[in-house]
């Protein structure tokens, strides 16, 4: 168990290091060189000034030296400054990570709560009208472009009905925050529920074909006991893995949803940072997001072992 955890955590660290090297290397290829931006902001700067500025910011040193300096700082908790916000990167990112986790957590829980009964309903009567309807709903869910879904929700609930705000974070009060959270959470839920329904339906149908289900029926258990007590518990095991692997996709959905609704989360921050040439913020944001997703994945694997005692973590 301890060995398993250590191995996985090393793996996460390795992915983060590889990713930081890759993205750090790409920063030099991004549009909008920081010194060029300073020069365009101040026409009095001469070429000599530009050279001096480059030296001041260490931009005249080779790439690997700059990366190692960045990594050294990062390992001591110094992730540098955000150009866009004029504050330490971490100070900008952490509250936004909390906002994203709030959005993703709510959407994830809602999606599971909706997917569970629908998947069970469909799997219990394969090829029936109910199954067909649920399946159609699930296919529609996975096929909706998430940003278009957001536009439609804004069009319906904010423009036409005027019930909810079209975007933003609210005034900081609980009611304000909640009313601004409803639409983005709904959009993210609808974007992910279809996939969950399909996994669950397929897995439960598979489980219902197993011999132990026949045995359970043969010994006279009620249909409900068979489905919920025996089949569903086993069907959940593969579903946990697939859903955990979907966390990365869920974060992608959160990025779109946050951008559409102006919800100040990690996804929107990374996107804004790239569009605003604030690459240090983008780099750390990307690493933080990746680390969070991979750790959530690890957590799901622990869940998996807990659900299935046959699995030993090694």
């Amino acid at each position, binding site marked *: 168990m301890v060995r398993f955890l250590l191995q996985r955590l090393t793996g996460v660290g390795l992915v983060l290091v590889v990713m930081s090297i890759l993205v750090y290397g790409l920063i030099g290829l991004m549009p909008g060189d920081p010194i060029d931006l300073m020069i365009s902001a101040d026409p009095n700067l001469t070429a000599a000034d530009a050279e001096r500025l480059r030296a001041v910011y260490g931009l005249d040193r080779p790439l690997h030296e700059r990366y190692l300096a960045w990594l050294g700082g990062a390992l001591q908790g110094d992730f540098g400054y955000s150009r866009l916000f004029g504050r330490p990167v971490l100070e900008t990112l952490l509250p936004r990570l909390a906002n994203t986790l709030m959005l993703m957590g709510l959407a994830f829980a809602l999606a599971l709560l909706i997917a569970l009964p629908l998947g069970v309903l469909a799997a219990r009567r394969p090829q029936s009208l109910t199954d067909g309807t649920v399946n159609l709903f699930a296919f*529609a869910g996975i*096929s909706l472009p998430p940003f278009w879904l957001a536009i439609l929700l804004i069009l319906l609930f904010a423009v036409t009905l005027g019930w909810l705000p079209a975007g933003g974070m609210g005034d900081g009060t609980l009611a304000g925050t909640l009313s601004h959270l409803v639409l983005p959470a709904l959009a993210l839920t609808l974007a992910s529920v279809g996939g969950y329904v399909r996994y669950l339906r397929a897995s439960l149908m598979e489980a219902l*074909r197993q011999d132990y289900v026949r045995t359970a029926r043969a010994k006279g258990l009620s249909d409900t006991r068979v489905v919920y007590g025996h089949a569903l518990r086993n069907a959940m095991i593969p579903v946990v893995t697939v859903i955990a692997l979907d966390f990365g996709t869920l974060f992608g959905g959160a990025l779109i949803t946050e951008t559409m609704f102006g919800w100040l989360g990690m996804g929107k921050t990374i996107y804004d940072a790239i569009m605003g040439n604030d690459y240090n913020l983008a780099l750390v944001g990307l690493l933080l997001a990746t680390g969070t997703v991979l750790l959530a994945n690890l957590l799901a694997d622990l869940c998996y072992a807990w659900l299935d005692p046959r699995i030993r973590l090694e």
Partner: protein
Amino acid sequence: MTAARSDPGGASDLLAASSAAVQPGLSPMRLRLRRFRRHLPAVVSLAVLILLGLAALAAPLIERWMGLDATAVDLFARALPPSARHPLGTDELGRDLLLRLLYGGRVSLAVGLAAALFAALIGTGLGLLAGYYGGWFDSAVMRLADTVIALPLLPLLIVLAAVDLSKLGLPPELATSEEVSLYRIVGLIALVGWTVTARLVRGAVLSLKRREYVLAAEALGARPARVMWVHLLPNAVSPIVVAATLSVGNVILLESVLSFLGLGIQPPVPSWGNMLTGAQETIWSAPWLAIWPGLLIFVTVIAFNFLGDGLQDALDPKAEAERAS
């Protein structure tokens, strides 16, 4: 679930043959066709996709027939509601919306098909090699695939799509040209889209390479390349076709997201994604501009998903047998 999908074609032929005994006179191909035809959503989807594809191909003809120019900006005709001259109205620059949708469909469909094809090619190649040779190469490829699947890919793609190609030594006019922005998005999506196919093909190869006919071919001195190309690949075609079809929908979604965010297909070249970029601003005054491109993405993606589902039923009779039980 994946295990059922990666069921090698050899076994499916066997099953198909045994049911052929019940229905004499039907070849495996005819049986597949018959199973496909029974999947109503898939048949409807195929028809819709053919219609959409034809309409997109015929865009220049329709343009001439309507007597309009799809690229002509008319600032006196901005965001007009539907009329006889403009059946779907005009966009925020006064261009005919229907024609832009058709031209945008060409781009979105072409990018979707091309990227899915390349992803399937990469995935098939890696899966074949990993499954056949095994060892460190296999574990490296599979570890890489698992990592890519778990990563939050969208922000990473956004970073990659934001790279200024002229800083890589490409001449600036080429770096921002229409062709390069097309190739770039196809390449980026293929770069992250190969994982599912690779795992499916590897799974199929792992079970196929233990079969007698493969061992016989090897005993007769067939080289690895021949074994893979002649004996393994043809029997792994079914899962590849299904996975590739299902991935087209995802690719079109991904392209639309990137283009919508301003990092994919660049205007004035229309794609269904970038036609929605300004939709949030015009949503109050001209909501139809926000409806149509999204509806077409939705219809296309769901059609490809249903088509893949139908193909799975048709090509993988084991899944069919499971459905019936």
